């Protein structure tokens, strides 16, 4: 960075020539330093752009070592376009994205968690990608996650869901057969009770507590499986206080005496140490458990349904989608890159490298990998009946209300009926306010 420093010193010297008070050696150095600092700070961004050609700025969450080979392939296929990639973290990515939009300098293409979408869509921040979606509709799944009133605001890229993990050894020690995992609510409760009561120092089920923000993802699968929901199909009325939801919450809380009440990461640690019979978690555990707990025998099952005769095996549907902001500088190349990234030959390597979410590309889901990996296949099956939260303009507020009232019920501060009634009333009030 020779040029800025040269300029900085020149500015300081120029000042003296114009007859300003003479300063000693040290203050002059300070002045030069200040000028240099200001010049460097005034530079428009510190990240280098391609000297010629076009640049697409792409923010995403995968490790750079995993995504870079795919982007290099894109650059080879599109000479003259350089991808400037940056890795976000799930802890602070949302803040960084919001700040960049507010500053008028968003990335051209951005990976977004599906839970970010409602707020961004409500605020008309994202480019309408319906025309691109029309072309890609048959080659991708997960459109419901990115579609609002028939318009698509992102492309489904990777899909995720949660399923039920079982500790096979604890099942056997409790006299249960892990080959016949709990398929109904009653079987789930029975298994949790047997493990918690027959095996010292073990708990039957992992119930989330101490992290309010994920409670709806853990409880709603039971409600959805029982025919319940948060809003009616029109999205204009709260149905949170429905009989189906109350039944589901009563059942969920009936697991509490046999459960470990803790945060998700603690559940996963306890499961890894062989002290937890069942947890609801995502496919990332399939990659980490063989390394962190090589002696642990575990299996994965679909989420239990209310009974053998009724309901569905529902789970939470998450997705990592690709969105383009309306104020992005290079929308055209961003669309080109998005179309490239969702292709099956590009999503499969990313899935194999990260293992956290599955390709949204339909043909990738038929990849031979899944035939030889039955545990991954369970997740693919679970995705088919997984439910995504609605793309509602007031979703952030609704989610907060649901989480808060569920927490009250889990901590025993309210009965299931009172908690869901209060949630219903608060959501109804929120729906009447202007977004």
């Amino acid at each position, binding site marked *: 960075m020779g040029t800025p420093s040269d300029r900085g010193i020149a500015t300081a010297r120029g000042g003296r020539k114009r007859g300003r*008070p003479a300063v000693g050696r040290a203050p002059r150095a300070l002045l030069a330093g200040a000028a240099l600092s200001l010049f460097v700070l005034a530079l428009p961004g510190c990240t280098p752009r391609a000297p010629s050609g076009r640049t697409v700025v792409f923010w995403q969450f995968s490790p750079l070592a995993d995504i870079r080979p795919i982007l290099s392939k894109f650059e080879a296929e599109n000479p003259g376009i350089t991808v400037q990639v940056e890795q976000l973290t799930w802890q602070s990515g949302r803040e960084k994205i919001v700040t960049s939009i507010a500053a008028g300098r968003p990335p051209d293409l951005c990976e977004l968690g599906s839970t970010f979408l409602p707020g961004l869509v409500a605020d008309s921040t994202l480019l309408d990608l319906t025309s691109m979606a029309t072309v890609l509709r048959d080659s991708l799944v997960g459109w419901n996650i990115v579609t609002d009133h028939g318009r698509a605001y992102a492309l489904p890229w990777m899909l995720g869901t949660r399923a039920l993990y079982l500790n096979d050894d604890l099942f056997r020690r409790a006299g249960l057969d892990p080959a016949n995992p709990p398929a109904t609510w009653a079987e789930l409760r029975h298994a949790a009770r047997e493990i918690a009561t027959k095996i010292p120092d073990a708990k039957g089920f992992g119930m989330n507590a101490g992290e309010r923000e994920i409670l709806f993802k853990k409880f709603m699968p039971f409600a959805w499986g029982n025919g319940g929901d948060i809003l009616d199909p029109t999205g204009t009325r709260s149905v949170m206080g429905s009989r189906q939801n109350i039944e589901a919450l009563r059942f969920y809380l009936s697991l509490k005496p046999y459960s470990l009440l803790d945060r998700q990461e603690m559940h996963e640690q306890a499961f890894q140490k062989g002290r937890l019979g069942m947890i609801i978690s995502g496919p990332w555990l399939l990659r980490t458990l063989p390394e962190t707990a090589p002696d642990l025998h575990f299996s994965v099952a679909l989420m239990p349904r209310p009974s053998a005769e009724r309901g569905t095996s529902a789970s939470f549907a998450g997705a990592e989608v690709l969105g383009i902001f309306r104020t992005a500088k290079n929308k055209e190349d961003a669309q080109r890159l998005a179309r490239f990234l969702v292709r099956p030959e590009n999503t499969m390597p990313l899935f194999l490298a990260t293992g956290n979410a599955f390709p949204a590309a339909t043909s990738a889901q038929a990849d031979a990998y899944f035939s030889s990996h039955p545990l991954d296949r369970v997740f693919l099956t679970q995705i088919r009946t997984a439910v995504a939260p609605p793309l509602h303009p007031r979703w952030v507020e609704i989610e907060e209300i649901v989480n808060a009232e569920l927490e009250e019920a889990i901590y025993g501060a309210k009965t299931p009926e009172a908690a869901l009634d209060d949630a219903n009333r608060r959501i109804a009030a929120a729906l009447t306010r202007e977004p």
Partner: protein
Amino acid sequence: MRHGARPLGVLPWTLAFLFFGLLPLAYALGLSLLEFNPLRPDRVQWLGLGNYVDALRSPSFWRALRTTAIFVVGTLPVTLTLAYGVAALLARARRAESFFRAAIFFPATLSMVVIALVFKSLYAEEGLFNSWLAAGGLSRVHFLQDARLALPSIMAMDIWASIGYYAILILAGRKTLPDDQLEAARLEGLSTWEVERRIVFPHVKPVLLFVVLLNTIRSFQIFIEVFVLTRGGPLESTLTLVYHLYDRAFYHFEMGYASALAFLLLLFVGVILVVQRRFLGARAEVGR
């Protein structure tokens, strides 16, 4: 030093303060009078003092203020007392004084995020503290999942992390006390306790006042600990004012409202500091 050098010497700091202190402050003050969603800059609305009125009417604001006040009131005297005690012990150390000073100061060199992550593991059901309880035949404690224990657990961590820094400040204050004054007091037959009470304590009172003010400001700003450990839960038992502000700003995109919360916080801290300074400052002067 020549007269012209002084203003130039403070120029870098003045410019930095102007650009990174005053300008953002003025910008935030402007924002606090608006309804401003950063994702919809086209929908800015003038509210005047509306955000302030909304905040003062909001139960969440008062709950967050109450939690923050409990945190300040709970940590300040304990931190101050322990820091004073540690400084007194360090002052008497005859061997390996540098080692003890460095060891006590060590937590101050760590990032609060790192400290909070370590304590998250220590407080876990399978963590070290629970293994000690289990070894003692006691039942496990849900430090961060129990609504009654979460805030005290964070306060305990914060006290541990702060003591060293304040102890070194107080120790520095003690070191300015001339040895011959202490020697004379001892020759006059004053006991260790009397020397501490009548000579040392009055001498370090200005430093203690500084520690009180500094710790009050820091405690009102508590955020990282809550963000890493509890996210305001369970049952909002650890929802502090700055975490509430962050939640409104970055999850609800209510930048105007969040800015109003920041200025209310500034107002509260300012009032408390003035009261503390008047009360303790006067006593510190009397003590000298």
